[in-house]
């Protein structure tokens, strides 16, 4: 006999993500889910954000990688609480991993939590983790056509950070073209053109954060 089910396949993850969202809202924590390919500049971007905003906000970081504590160590070395999640084989963070990591964050009165997702433009887009904002980094070395090739993550993003603009002259990256592509996918997408290396363009990003995080 046929029985109706009508249930979302990812309901288990979405339910935990909802729990995470409520926990963060109750505690007044603004959570950023930071996603990008490996090497696009996620950790450097976090370091720049911390450097500029640590006097204003109480910040912690959750790092997601298949293996190693390299990234969490970089954050800890500058005196910011960092929890490293090693996923083993999983290519994305999910809501349960985040829920399990929350107890390890040693910071009272947290204002801003940055979650550095596993380096991947495919899978992280599928899994809500309880974030308030989804920020995607694309470096100019990767090419302006990546939104066409990996549409979901760019459709779901709130912010697109175009990093390594100090290298523009060395690439064929077309800034106007990527804006033409993304306006059709996601017209509300906020785009910041930056260089983590030189610091150029980051002021706009810091203002974006300050407008949303409550100290």
């Amino acid at each position, binding site marked *: *006999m*046929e*029985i*109706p*089910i*009508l*249930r*979302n*396949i*990812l*309901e*288990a*993850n979405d339910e935990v993500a909802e729990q995470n969202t409520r926990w963060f809202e109750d505690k007044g924590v603004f959570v950023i889910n930071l996603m990008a390919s490996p090497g696009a500049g996620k950790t450097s971007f976090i370091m720049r954000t911390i450097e500029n905003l640590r006097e204003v906000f109480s910040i912690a970081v959750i790092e997601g990688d298949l293996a190693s504590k390299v990234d969490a160590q970089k954050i800890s070395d500058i005196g910011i609480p960092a929890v490293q999640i090693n996923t083993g084989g*999983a*290519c*994305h963070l*999910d809501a349960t991993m985040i829920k399990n990591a929350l107890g390890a964050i040693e910071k009272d009165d947290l204002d801003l939590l940055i979650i550095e997702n596993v380096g991947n433009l*495919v*899978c992280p887009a*599928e*899994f809500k983790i309880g974030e308030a904002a989804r920020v995607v980094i694309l470096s100019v070395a990767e090419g302006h056509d990546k939104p*066409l090739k990996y*549409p*979901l993550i760019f*459709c779901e993003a709130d912010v697109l950070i175009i990093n390594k603009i100090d290298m523009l002259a060395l690439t064929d990256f077309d800034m106007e073209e990527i804006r033409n592509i993304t*306006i*059709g*996918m*996601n*017209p*509300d997408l906020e785009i910041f053109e930056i260089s983590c290396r030189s610091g150029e363009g980051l002021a706009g990003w810091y203002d974006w954060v300050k407008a949303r995080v409550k100290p």
Partner: protein
Amino acid sequence: MHEFAITQGILDVTLKGAKEQGAIKINTVYLKVGAMSDIVDDCVQFYFEQLSKGTIAEGAQLQVEKVPARAKCNNCQAEFEPEEFFFQCSSCGQFGAQIISGKELEVSSLDIETEP
């Protein structure tokens, strides 16, 4: 799409729903997959065969109904079929729309056997 995690999700929802109805065997799992969700059917079928071993879902077939993407223009409210995640209204040319269908990823129904 991450097919392993998706398949685990399919199995979990399937077994939960089947248990609620007192099923002793699951013959078919009917899935609804939107064009913007998209899964690689062969991958999911393979993982399902492995993960369902020893459960009442072992041997069940997966049937996928594909749902096309449809969007409603934020500007003129016209409905259109976006091409390849590109949400430009075919009526007024403005960008920006609400997604009406195309993001589904659900178990819609099961064909089960219960105690005679």
